[in-house]
């Protein structure tokens, strides 16, 4: 039995990794549909890691990053955060909504398109969990922020601050015809939700 992320054993972490892999596969499919081009995906790196390490991986606490935060609830509760560096976000937006000369800031239109992409990618993760486990999971509207990655990530960390300081960090690399894109997904699930998911997938706790 475990009461926070620090206490997960290897089998349990492997299972989370597998969920991460399947989620990333679905996300790649979703992205290919949005961009209307073939998207290759290298195997995602899934890690259970501390906040500071995750922030370091993302370029350091002050790195300007686009974050889309989606909460999920129902039979499973938690949050998913989709992180994209600003340059990658801009290049996707140029494909999707065209270059509208908004060099510095992202226009409203682009912001809302990013929100939608974050929403679709996050939902594809949640959908894989739902499909694997048979749980009913609802996804809320996405929230977007562009700021220092440390500041953005502190929001879900605070929300789940009681669970120990580990999080599930998934790095995925997509490459399409015209661009290469690295995105990161961070999954925060309530501890009871983790237990339910693992039980549904046949792991003895």
């Amino acid at each position, binding site marked *: 039995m475990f009461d926070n992320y620090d206490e997960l054993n290897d089998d349990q972490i492997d299972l989370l990794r597998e969920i991460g892999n399947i989620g990333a596969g679905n996300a790649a499919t979703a992205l290919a549909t949005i961009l209307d081009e073939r998207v290759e995906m290298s195997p995602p790196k899934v890690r259970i890691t501390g906040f*500071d390490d995750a922030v370091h991986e993302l370029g350091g606490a002050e790195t*300007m990053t686009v974050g889309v935060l989606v909460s999920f609830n129902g039979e499973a509760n938690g949050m998913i955060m989709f992180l994209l560096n600003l340059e990658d976000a801009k290049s996707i937006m140029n494909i999707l909504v065209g270059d509208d000369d908004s060099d510095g800031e992202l226009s409203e239109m682009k912001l809302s398109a990013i929100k939608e992409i974050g929403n679709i990618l996050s939902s594809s993760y949640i959908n894989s969990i739902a499909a694997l486990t048979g749980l009913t999971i609802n996804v809320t*509207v996405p929230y977007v*922020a562009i*700021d*220092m*990655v*440390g*500041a953005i990530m502190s*929001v879900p960390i605070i929300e789940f601050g009681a669970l120990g300081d580990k999080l599930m960090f998934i790095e995925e690399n997509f490459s399409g015809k015209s661009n290469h894109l690295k995105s990161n997904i961070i999954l925060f699930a309530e501890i009871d939700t983790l237990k339910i998911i693992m039980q549904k997938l046949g792991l003895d706790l």
Partner: protein
Amino acid sequence: MSSFIVVGISDYKFSKAPEVIVTYALGSCVGVCLYDKVLKIGGLSHIMLPDSTNFVNKEINRMKFADTAIIDLVEKLRKNSFVNNRITAKIAGGAQMFETQPGSKLGGIGERNIQSVKKALYNLKIPILAEDTGLNYGRTQYFDLETGIMKIQSLNRQIKEY
């Protein structure tokens, strides 16, 4: 170039002049600078949550919560100082990073952190000389123990000194 003493999330550091303490990318967290300007000693605490009392049955990290971290850091300062009533505070952070709909569970944690920090300081009779709190952006907080100046740096914004 001088190096800084870095404070992580749910952490605090204590030092003396001429050191500069920094905590990077405060979002909804609150950074509290405590200072004794005569001895030029001080500390910076990066607080994540307002209240430890919801977690009483667990072993907690006292540096994480406003109600415990500030008491501990003040204790440290007072051990190094003979005069109790000289400690002053400057605070920053407590932003709302994501625009949320009213009634959402996500909103308000930054504001609750700010209020809880203020209450803890009030209870310890420590005056707040300056604050740069709330709004919707991240802040990096530098605290110069030589001058007692708190410097706030954000992306695409002017640096502010308090």
